[in-house]
């Protein structure tokens, strides 16, 4: 099951650039939460702080706290442990190109020491089913490489790979921005289904997509969280003029 995320006084820097400033936010469990805002507003940096990826940048620095469930990810767990509990899918699908479909999905489990064939088979099938890809690839699991799939299939393969390690939170950084409308619709359907089991945070530039898939939406601007509210409220009657100006295309 998914868990809630509680962010308190989160600040992040790239060198001297203060990219996130005093972010306070509660993301409810088993909901999809969308983050919107213009390029460079800090939304991608924010999600990278939720699985300690920001600190992999040599000039990246973070202060404040992030609780995933009851766990303070910056003081109570290692980055490796956090990335198992918090999966991530990126804008461009990034399957391991030389690995088969099966090995792509099983890779996370193997890294975590799982070797039992029966267990691996079960998890690979379950993850591909959850990612709505099983029916399309079940006959070619070990014959075809991940890179041989279409863009939309590759992205679902990456989602299956992330699900295989049984995370509690799924971070998605513009997961459908490189996909055609049909593949995008599949990803959106998937998000809708997955949120019953996982907490999903999705960064998107597509506001209609945010409106379609997320119960809550946060608007970032210049490194600050300007507004966070129910999605229907944000897109019909936002409280802050800056949010309204952005979503109606009056700046950005």
């Amino acid at each position: 099951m998914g868990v809630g995320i509680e962010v308190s006084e989160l600040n992040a820097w790239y060198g001297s650039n203060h990219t996130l400033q005093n972010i306070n936010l509660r993301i409810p469990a088993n909901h999809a939460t969308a983050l919107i805002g213009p390029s460079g507003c800090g939304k991608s940096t924010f999600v990278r702080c939720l699985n300690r990826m920001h600190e992999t940048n040599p000039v990246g620095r973070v202060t404040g706290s992030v609780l995933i469930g009851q766990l303070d990810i910056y003081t109570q767990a290692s980055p490796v442990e956090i990335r198992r509990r918090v999966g991530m899918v990126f804008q461009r699908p990034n399957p391991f190109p030389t690995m088969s479909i099966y090995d792509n999905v099983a890779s996370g489990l193997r890294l975590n020491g799982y070797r039992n064939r029966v267990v691996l088979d079960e998890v690979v099938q379950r993850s591909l089913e959850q990612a709505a890809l099983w029916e399309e690839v079940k006959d070619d699991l070990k014959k075809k490489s991940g890179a041989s799939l279409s863009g939309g299939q590759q992205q679902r393969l990456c989602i299956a790979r992330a699900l295989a390690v049984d995370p509690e939170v799924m971070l998605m950084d513009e997961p459908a921005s490189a996909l055609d409308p049909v593949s995008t619709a599949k990803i959106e359907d998937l998000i809708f289904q997955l949120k019953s089991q996982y907490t999903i945070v999705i960064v998107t530039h597509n506001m209609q997509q945010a409106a379609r898939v997320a119960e809550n939406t946060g608007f970032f601007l210049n490194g600050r969280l300007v507004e966070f509210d129910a999605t229907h409220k944000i897109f019909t009657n936002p409280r802050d003029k800056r949010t309204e100006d952005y979503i109606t295309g009056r700046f950005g």
Partner: protein
Amino acid sequence: MTRIRFHRQLDDLKERLLVMAGMAEQAIQRAVEAYRVRDLSLCDLVARSEASINSFEREIDQMALDLLAMEQPMAIDLRFILAVIKINADLERVGDQAVSISERVRDLHALPAVELPVDIPRMAALASSMVRRALQGFIEADAEVAQSVLAMDDSVDKLNDAAFFSLSAMIQEQPLYAPQALHALLIARNLERVGDHATNVAEDVIFWVRGADVRHHLSA
């Protein structure tokens, strides 16, 4: 990401609606003037304007539909287009009320003239001022101005109630003039409906500007 073309199209939509509003308002004025001076040529003008108002209604709906489909508006822009669609329907109905009044005027014209115990021009002035005020709120995106229209509706309703009682009494006391009294009663009813449409327009302006649903006496 600034959407200059889209916002120009919203301005165009507003402009078209205001042209139509002007026609609907003029139709009511002509119909009431036709009643006051018993001039059937004004009734002809009202009948002719109906086709134009109906044509505007279709054009504005199509423009709004296209913008919804092509631009996927959000927030205040979405509320604006929804408000325009609803105001459009109300203005078309105002035009219909004008046609209905002008038809009553024709019927009255065919009957002997008689003093009727109802101040139709006063009712019309009040209903028209409601329409104008609601449209002023729309032009200026001013919810306060629109809000003031809601209070005016009671005055029109009271005049309509008074017309009902005085004309009912006339029908009982002077049955010979019952047809004239009935026509006047229906005209008063038409003007009361114009007030209702103006109230709807004002509520839609408040929804657009504030995002608040104040219909049916809800305070949001």
